[in-house]
């Protein structure tokens, strides 16, 4: 549904997007996970036809975007990162306007407006001016404006920025439902959990480049299948008990140790080593490999939250 090849955009000497290539299939939710300034918004802007790439090609449903992409634009819905609404108009008036830009009119426009308002549970406030909405309410109308014309492709740029957990779950649900009904979704975020729970495939992007791309399981394999075990207790760093096969020390200090364990079973024998030496163990924490680890390994950065 979406094919991107060698996409590039520099702003002066800032390499905002530096040679991106990826493909998204119909009905798939494709996640862009990256920290601030990674190039997510710049990529979305080029996909939506707002920014002209310096190099590379974008094909939307078989149509090249380079010629302006008139037809392709009409099947896309965009939910920008910054709330792009008219504050002096009501939620409904905003939706009417954005809907009419995509060719909706008359009864059809009114129906679709009611549908999306209902979807984000804002029907009762629809006639208040957007300027009087809370941040989360504006976000929800911002989302609606991108969905009102039932696009085949939705580009969502951090749509859950700064809203409460409940509303966030609601938005994720909406996106999931859209995808289930066959809509193709590109979803950018810097929240690991969102990418993990929502996206079928994820691209890890930093400094304008894709560092890895695949399903969650595929990505996790990249950092190996080792678990991280953190033990705290009454022990000294230089008198640590012998470790079972397939276990190594990652970091250690008096009273706390971080170990890399290839297999859960090893944890038991390690603990019995502690007990037999008469050392006290306070806590044991096992963390399975996740995107956090992948991200750290690939970019050398923690994702801020």
């Amino acid at each position, binding site marked *: 549904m979406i094919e991107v090849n060698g996409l590039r955009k520099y702003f002066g000497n800032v390499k905002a997007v530096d040679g991106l290539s990826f493909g998204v299939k119909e009905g798939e939710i494709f996640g862009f996970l990256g920290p601030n300034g990674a190039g997510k918004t710049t990529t979305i*802007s080029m996909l*939506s*036809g*707002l*920014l*002209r790439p310096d190099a590379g090609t974008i094909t939307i449903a078989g149509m090249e975007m380079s010629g*302006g992409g*008139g*037809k392709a*634009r*009409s099947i*896309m819905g*965009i939910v*920008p990162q*910054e*709330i*792009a*609404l*008219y504050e*002096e*108009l009501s939620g409904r*008036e905003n939706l009417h*306007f*954005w809907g*009419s*830009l*995509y*060719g909706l009119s008359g009864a059809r426009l009114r129906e679709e407006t009611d549908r999306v308002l209902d979807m984000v549970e804002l029907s009762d406030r629809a006639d208040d*001016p957007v300027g009087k909405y809370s941040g989360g309410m504006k976000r929800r109308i911002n989302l609606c*404006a991108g969905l009102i014309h039932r696009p085949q492709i939705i580009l969502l740029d951090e749509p859950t920025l700064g809203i409460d957990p409940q509303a966030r779950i609601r938005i994720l649900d909406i996106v999931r439902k859209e995808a289930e009904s066959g809509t193709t979704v590109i979803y950018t975020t810097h929240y690991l959990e969102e990418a993990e729970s929502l996206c079928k495939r994820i691209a890890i992007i930093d400094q304008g480049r894709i560092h890895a791309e695949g399903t969650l399981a595929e990505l996790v394999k990249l950092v190996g299948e080792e678990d991280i075990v953190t033990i705290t207790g009454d022990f000294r760093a230089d008198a640590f008990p012998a470790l079972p096969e397939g276990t190594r020390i990652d970091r250690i200090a008096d009273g706390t140790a971080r170990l890399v364990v290839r297999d859960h079973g090893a944890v038991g024998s390690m603990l019995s080593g502690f007990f037999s030496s008469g050392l006290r163990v306070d806590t044991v924490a096992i963390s399975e490999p996740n995107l956090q680890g992948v991200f750290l390994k690939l970019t050398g950065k923690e994702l801020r939250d």
Partner: protein
Amino acid sequence: MKRVLIIFANDLRRRLKSPLSILLMLAIPLVMTLVIGGVFGRSGKVEMTKIRLLVFDADRGLGGRFVRQGFEQGKLAEMFELVPVDSIDGFDLMAEGKASALLVIPRGFTNDLLDRRQTALKLIKNPSESFNPIIAEEAEPLKKTRSMLSADKWPALGDMQVLLDEAKIPFTQVEGYIGDSLVTLGSETAADTARAGGNAGSSGFNIFSYVMSGSLMLGLLFTSNIMLNDIVREKRAGTLARALCSPIGTGHVVAGKVLSVYAVTAIACLLLLVVGKFAFSMDLGDPAALAAHTAASILMCTGIMTLLFGIVRRERAADAIAPVVIIVLAMLGGSMLSFDMFGETMQRIGKFSPVYWANDGFKKIMVFGAGTSDISRNILVLAVIGLASLVPGALLLGTGFRKGG
């Protein structure tokens, strides 16, 4: 076209929902009219303070009578009170503040006129009065006579006829002096001034109309400025980007926006004129002329501001530059200080400001009762400037949209 209308209608709706900033801009000309106009007479009609014009007729001949009698009829009679004086008395009266100006008709004026020699009327203004003498200078018979005399060709027969009619002197009396063979085409200025005025049939000079005709454009320029500023703000707010992502196309977005600038400026103008008419009993002149001239003036206004915002794209720069440009153009065009008070050099410079052509037209229509044909040159100049700035301005604005996102 439908797409343009969607953008246009939305901008109009938004403006109607928050009209305050524009209403504030409209306060400029209204306050100016109220204050300046109020100084000269609360009713707006200056009957009670007729302009006292002293006339020292050293000529005592036919030519002098042309001029004097011109001031004693119709509309001008309502504006001027003519007081014959010796030149000496005249200066004294002015010094005492009892007269606005002294008109000197020189000795031998009639003979010079008939012998086709250069001659000049002299208008000595009372320096302590800034307003009334200007009207005396504007007065038609004076202007007509002066322009006929200063033209390098003998005036057209028709023009002479007008003057003679006004002076109630039978044409036949002077027929002997002006043969048909002498009649060549009148110069442009002579023809111009001959037509303006006279056909108003209105009830006297209205000071509010005079001030409003000058200050109107100031309010309209600022109104256009607000509308274009809004486009810049939309860039920051992301709504513009969102519209540009839609299948509607940049050209349609620009066209819709520019149309809304024009429409809102036109509504603002209508509001000002309606308030002027009912609150100040302003005389608005010939409706057809007013409509045509207003349409052209707003085109100029929209065009100039669109070009400005097409060139200056950054928000801060636009915020700083636009008001300065407006004020300079308006000042040169005579919106702050009446154009009539400018010296000759300043008037020549002022004509390069498109605002002059707008102000001048409004004045001719609203104060001197000109018809559409009298101000056709103003309309033409304004329309040409308007289109010549609007087209490149809109194109620049469009490229700015695409680049700036």
